[in-house]
């Protein structure tokens, strides 16, 4: 077991009244120490569910129906809730999408930082406060001592996201899972936060799983990319290859739709149609109704994720 994190054949279902719906349909990926992986896709592709399933915090009625997750050689997908708590916030930290909603409004920043430390370490309150202060300095927050006694509503969105990053650094995380960490922020703040995350991952040798729909951000920060579509990984490989020579028509479409990928004044490429709802996924390749290259085989057989010529893995019958 050489990988830091290994996800094998993970399947997540949601138990609804009308029957179970598959949100994640058998995905595999690995992450090594200090490695940065981006998970990209449209809303509803299963990116966030993938992130939450790693620390077993999928919102009800979702549950892991198949597959296994190994972390540092242990099969954490079999862990009980109390065993899982020794991982959450300690070895694997999460950063949520909207920093305005993530911190509890009725407790001070210091309170919320100190309790995290004390949940994982036997440590006095004053020592915990000192560590909290040190981490706040690390995320380059102005006047960190003051922040400890402030309430979340007294801080801006960018500052709150810095504080959440500081909270995730508090103990000794091996992996940070960041679920759209900059979507709710201003563009200028977005770049600052991403730079900070990348720089911290490098200096602290932390792994990063960056979940986003923004291919531009992913291509700057991560080393590997997994593109998800309708609950499956449809392309997986080194960031350079995936961004510059994508194999899957969906990835090609995603990259073509980034502003700046076409000549100025020209229309942006657009993927026609919408992603199917999870209860209504088409037979064969889930992308076939929106695909220009669709052939009869695409509507009959699900393409396997296989090695392609440029070195990435992709799930497409047509392209090599």
């Amino acid at each position, binding site marked *: 077991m050489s990988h830091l994190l290994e996800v094998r054949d993970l399947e997540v279902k949601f138990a609804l009244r009308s029957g179970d719906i598959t949100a994640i349909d058998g995905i595999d990926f690995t992450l090594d120490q200090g490695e940065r992986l981006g998970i990209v896709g449209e809303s509803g592709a299963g990116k966030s569910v993938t992130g939450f399933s790693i*620390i077993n*915090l999928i*919102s009800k009625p979702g549950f892991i129906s198949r597959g296994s997750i190994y972390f540092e050689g242990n099969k954490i997908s079999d862990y009980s809730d109390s065993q899982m*708590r*020794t*991982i*959450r*916030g*300690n070895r694997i*930290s*999460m950063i*949520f999408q*909207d920093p305005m*909603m*993530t*911190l*509890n*409004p*009725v*407790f001070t920043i210091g309170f919320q930082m100190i*309790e*995290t430390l004390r*949940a*994982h370490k036997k440590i006095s309150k004053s020592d915990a406060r000192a560590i909290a202060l040190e981490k706040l300095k690390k995320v380059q927050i102005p006047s960190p001592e003051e922040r400890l006694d402030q*309430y979340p*509503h*007294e801080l801006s969105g960018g500052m709150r996201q810095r504080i*959440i990053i500081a*909270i995730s650094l508090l103990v000794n995380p091996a992996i940070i899972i960041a679920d759209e960490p900059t979507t709710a922020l201003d563009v200028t703040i977005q770049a600052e936060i991403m730079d900070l995350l990348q720089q911290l991952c490098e200096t602290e040798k932390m792994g990063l799983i960056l979940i986003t729909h923004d291919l531009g951000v992913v291509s700057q920060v991560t080393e590997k990319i997994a593109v998800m579509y309708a609950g499956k990984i449809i392309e997986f490989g080194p960031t350079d290859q995936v961004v510059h020579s994508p194999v899957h028509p969906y990835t090609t479409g995603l990259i073509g739709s980034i502003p700046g990928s076409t000549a100025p004044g020209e229309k942006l490429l657009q993927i026609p149609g919408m992603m199917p709802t999870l209860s209504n996924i088409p037979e064969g390749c889930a992308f076939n109704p929106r695909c220009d290259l669709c052939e009869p085989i695409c509507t009959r057989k699900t393409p396997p994720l296989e090695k392609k010529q440029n070195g990435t893995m992709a799930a497409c019958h047509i392209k090599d």
Partner: protein
Amino acid sequence: MFAFIIRRILQAVVVMLVISLMGFAIKNNIGDPVRDLVGERVTPAERAKMADDMGLNDPFLIQYLRFIGHAVKGDLGRSFLYNKPNLEVISQHAPATIELLMGTALIIVLISLPLGVQSALQPKSKLARFTMSFSTLGISMPVFLTAILLIYVFAVHLQILPSFGRGETVDLFGNGYWNTGFLTRDGLEHLILPCLSLSSIMLPLFIRLIRSEMMEVLETEYIKYAWAKGLSPARVWMVHAFKNTLLPVVTVFGVQMGITFAFTILTELVFQWQGMGFMFLEAVQRADISLLIAYLVVVASVFVLVNTVVDIVYGFINPTVRIVGTR
């Protein structure tokens, strides 16, 4: 915080002025104080002179200002029924009612908090289902019926609890003003049934309020984040979720205790409880307008006081309120 408190108190004063104006307007227009004092046998000429002496012919505003002036000094007029100052009559009856309310508040807090939280955390458990169906019953039953049922079961049938009066009381300050039932076993036993029937209206409401607030809070992002930080269930539920649940509950508690105060009239009647409600009913029967108005002003000031205190407490729990106040 200081500015917030000052502002809140000023608001309370304004509300009190409006209420006193209404009270005075009623007093000014209903009944004839001269007749109340001297009866029918005095000649019209003498009555007119008395009315003049008492200032009853002065303009409304002058009379109102005089009324306020007296009220501020603690003089709310005289009750001809008891032949004592109104305030003294009321303050002699107040402790009984206050103790009734305190007992009721205690029962509501002690029962609704654990049951409400439990039914939010385990909504499908047997206890939660029982709580929910029982609280529907409690909401739909009127107080006097609950009271009579309680008397029938515990006083008449089982004969384990007394059905009327305050029982043995202790003079708290030795001056006859505050006779408390909290210090003797007999006094406490007498408190149980009235408090239970009074709390029966608000208890179901609070269980349901706490339950729905808690369930809503448990779905928020910051609770999910608390789990993601690796906190224990006890901490996530009892610290992170509980404090946020309390915010709206505290506000509603203040308002509802005021309404409960109003319901004491019924409860005191059924249990022959010598409190303010009982006194109020007597005053109504004997048309003691002066005492009724004094009662109105006192009850209103209690309402305003409770709500002001609740708002200030809320300011302490909810940090976002304080910012608004200090700006």
